[in-house]
């Protein structure tokens, strides 16, 4: 198994194979492709957060000489139902069809209504004002609690709450209810000697990728179409477009550009089907790119939440009961990540009695998209805050309290399976031994600690490795590389083949050049696509051994493979991979290895983060002064990129905790739709982020890999908010802990 094996490439800090392109500006991202004859598309967006569309008059726009095509929802075929899973989420085709271009209602400020293609971007933009829309403006509802009231403005007349004991007769903004339980929650609280119960809220946030959504498409007269776009999953883009535009899969080639960040939100589509319809109508290639303002107003966001958590323990530190109500804002259409929130909230704890209830609620905001460990940061924030407060009340060190109740192998989760081997205890021990935990705090400083859990997923991956006549190889995969995964693929293939990484080129192929591969999401790529790479490499080795055997006139069993060289066991003769490939023509043609898998056995990744802050009590501004991120990677293939995931997750979580929030006017208009006012962390906002890679191998992966991409965003919310609470002596349960809110808390307390 993995622990015994000595690695040559795995665990090294190699130079990423796509690095040269990325540092020279040569890498082509979503907005970087132009085609001959290409024109530009722009979208007319709703000026209202909630309105009925009585009529859209596009005649003036259509008559304008600059305008080459106009499309509205009426140009799309009717999509009645259906959907499928993408990443950890679910796509509903009917809703998505109404999200890319509104049907009879607009449900958020910025909701697309129509699109225009013209010779230049400026001409398309200018022509949008020629479209007349007759609205009946309706009252919007933005807050979850307001939207749940029986007399709230209703977004959808045909939305009936799922998951209730009885089928409701009245439509509601509550799309669904979920309940998870374990043990006897009442008995659990009866056995408790100390109970803490608190309310929490988290704001609407954005994933904040620096690259806006962009696409270039070409619809050909014979129906063969090409879509170039920035996406985490081009195969799923193909499936979505095929349904939304009623096109055959076989007529769609989708090419994933380099992707400038996604964090879950580039697992759906916004522009692509609209651009393709514009291309069909105009007969020209069409490019579309969102502005940053459009990205904020009409893509992404991560769900806002309101929650209540209650936890009870005995004085000896044994937790007896954990209870939560978790309400998630889905945005304009159902499907917030409420379910994974419910499933993850208490999973770091081995506690007999648990009860979690969740609600998925539609509000007049953009449809929420997945955001790194979707649903978990909000849920675990509430849970970890109460854990910290309870530890404080019990007078027990927060790490010892967690160790005493920590989930481990065999712990029964609230959502079904028992945990396999996991590394939470090891992460907690590492936190206890970290230099930061031993360092004393200065004046106006506070410390917070939190755990995080995320499942991770596997799924379908396809890989082909083509060996070339000079003994080098191309690794063809179908997983868009969002953070350096091509480096991992190269290293894993090199390890199996025993040839140097410099002789292997990883390529992310389009939908015509490799079989279906699931979307890059759920921290699946290095785990699942990595497994496919390993299998494909093993297939190559098997064939290379057969070729050598044929040369020596022995059986393949009499050939050994080591360090890229075949050895004839009987004679001691040797043939290198290069020599075998050079003579492939004579031994039966070229060598290609292949693997098409549906990976099972994704190993959960636990993390523990430690945060020290300093609060300026005159302004309420919080600075993170020291931060340590500890997480179980199973086995780190490329430690630098594993650390990068921990640091990036921590930074996003710190932004979520301290500054980031959608600020809305009463009529539902986002008032801070730009990077100046929606403040993501800058380099001057952060300290170095210390990391500890814990390695508790996942026995289901040949090298022990666990996904590492998502867990790191979970602990910061509670770690930071606890640190701020500690520094000012006031409990901060409503994120973000922005300067005005912290200042008010200080003033109210004094």
């Amino acid at each position, binding site marked *: 198994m993995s622990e015994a094996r000595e690695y040559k490439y795995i665990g090294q*800090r190699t*130079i*990423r194979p*796509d*690095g*040269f*392109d*990325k*540092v*020279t*500006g*040569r*890498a*082509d*991202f979503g*907005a*970087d492709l*132009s085609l001959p004859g290409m024109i530009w598309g722009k979208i007319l967006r709703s000026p209202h957060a909630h309105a009925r569309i009585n009529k859209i008059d596009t005649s003036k726009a259509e008559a304008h000489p600059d305008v080459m095509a106009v499309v509205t929802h009426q140009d799309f075929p009717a999509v009645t139902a259906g959907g499928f899973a993408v990443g950890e989420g679910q796509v509903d085709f009917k809703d998505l069809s109404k999200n890319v271009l509104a049907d009879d209602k607009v449900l958020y400020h910025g909701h697309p209504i129509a699109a225009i293609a013209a010779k230049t971007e*400026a001409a398309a933009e200018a022509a949008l004002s020629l479209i007349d829309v007759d609205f009946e403006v309706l009252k919007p509802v933005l807050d979850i609690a307001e939207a749940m009231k029986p007399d709230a403005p209703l977004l959808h007349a045909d939305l009936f709450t799922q998951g209730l004991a009885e089928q409701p007769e009245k439509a509601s903004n509550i799309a669904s209810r979920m309940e998870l339980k374990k043990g006897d929650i009442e008995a659990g609280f009866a056995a408790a000697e100390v109970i803490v119960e608190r309310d929490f809220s988290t704001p609407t946030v954005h*994933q*904040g*990728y*620096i*690259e*806006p959504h962009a696409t270039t498409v070409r619809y050909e007269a014979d129906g063969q179409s090409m879509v170039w776009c920035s996406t985490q999953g081009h195969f799923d883009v193909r499936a979505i477009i095929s349904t939304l535009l009623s096109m055959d899969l076989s007529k769609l080639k989708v090419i994933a550009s*380099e*992707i*400038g*960040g*996604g*964090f879950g939100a580039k697992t759906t589509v916004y522009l692509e089907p609209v651009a393709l319809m514009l291309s069909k109508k105009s007969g020209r290639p069409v490019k579309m*790119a969102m*502005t*940053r303002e459009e990205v904020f107003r009409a893509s992404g966001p991560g769900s806002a939440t309101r929650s209540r958590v209650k936890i009870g323990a005995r004085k000896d530190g044994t937790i007896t009961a954990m209870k939560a109500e978790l309400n998630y804002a889905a945005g304009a259409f159902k499907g917030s990540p409420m379910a994974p929130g419910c499933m993850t909230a208490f999973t770091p704890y081995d506690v007999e009695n648990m009860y979690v209830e969740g609600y998925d609620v539609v509000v007049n905001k953009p449809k929420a998209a997945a955001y790194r460990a979707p649903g978990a940061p909000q849920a675990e924030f509430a849970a970890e805050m109460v854990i910290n407060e309870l530890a404080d009340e019990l007078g027990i060190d927060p790490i010892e309290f967690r160790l005493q109740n920590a989930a481990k192998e065999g712990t029964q989760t609230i959502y079904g399976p028992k945990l396999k081997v996991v590394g939470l205890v090891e992460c907690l021990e590492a936190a206890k031994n970290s230099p930061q935990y031993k360092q004393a705090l200065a004046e106006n400083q506070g410390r917070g600690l939190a755990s995080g859990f995320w499942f991770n997923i596997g799924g379908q991956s396809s890989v082909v490795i083509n060996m070339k006549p000079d003994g080098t190889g191309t690794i063809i995969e179908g997983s868009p590389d*969002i*953070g*350096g995964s091509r480096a991992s693929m190269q290293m894993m293939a090199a390890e199996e083949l025993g040839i140097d990484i410099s002789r292997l080129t990883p390529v992310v192929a389009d939908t015509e050049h490799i079989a279906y591969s699931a979307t890059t999401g759920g921290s699946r790529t290095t785990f699942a696509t990595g497994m496919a790479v390993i299998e494909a490499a093993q297939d190559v080795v098997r064939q290379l051994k057969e070729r050598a055997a044929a040369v020596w006139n022995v059986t393949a069993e009499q050939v050994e493979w080591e360090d890229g060289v075949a050895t004839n066991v009987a004679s001691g003769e040797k043939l290198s991979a290069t020599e075998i490939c050079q003579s492939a023509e004579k031994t039966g043609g070229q060598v290609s290895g292949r693997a098409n898998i549906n990976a099972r056995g994704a190993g959960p990744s636990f993390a523990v983060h430690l945060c020290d802050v300093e609060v300026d009590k005159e302004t309420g501004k919080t600075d993170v002064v020291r931060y340590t991120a500890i997480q179980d990677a199973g086995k780190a293939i*490329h430690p*630098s*990129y594993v*650390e*990068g*995931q921990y*640091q*990036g997750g*921590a*930074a*996003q979580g710190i932004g979520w905790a301290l500054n980031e929030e959608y600020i809305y006017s009463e009529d539902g208009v986002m008032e801070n739709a*730009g*990077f*100046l006012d929606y403040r*993501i*962390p*800058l*380099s*001057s*906002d*952060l300290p*170095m*982020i210390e990391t500890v890679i814990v390695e508790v191998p996942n026995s289901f992966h040949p090298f022990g890999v666990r996904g590492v991409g998502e867990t790191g965003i979970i602990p910061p919310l509670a770690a930071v908010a606890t640190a701020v609470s500690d520094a000012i002596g006031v409990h901060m349960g409503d994120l973000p802990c922005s300067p005005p809110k912290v200042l008010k808390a200080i003033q109210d307390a004094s």
Partner: protein
Amino acid sequence: MAKTHVTTSINGEATEFLCEPNETLLAVLRNELQLTGTKEGCGSGDCGACSVTMNGRLVCSCLVLGVEAEGAEIGTVEGISNKENLHVIQEKFLEHAALQCGICTPGLIVSTKALLEENPDPTEEEIRYYLAGNLCRCTGYDKIIRAVMDSAVVMRGDA
């Protein structure tokens, strides 16, 4: 509106282009000249993905008009390395894994070069404030700052 004829120098190469009076330098670089290494992240001067130098000064090309390039010397990411070798800063970004998705990288490399030309021996804090106009959402900046510090050491000849 008639287009304006502009004569400029880009990465040391004499260049002419036509642009609308209200067209940004960023749009000209990307759409007219096909220099797509300069990225657009916001169009409002907040993210730094479009950083270029203009007569040696670091600017957001989304806040500069194409016509302002008349007679100027523009430096973009495409001009950082020479024909044979990557620049030290580019090598250090790769060595330190100072990028994940890579969309902010061209802007950061242009900004880092401007920083180290102005201040060859910056402190960590000086680097963090100089680069505060270049947003990165993937890395948490840690590895970027280390790459810049290491680049400075090599460029000073201390290594």
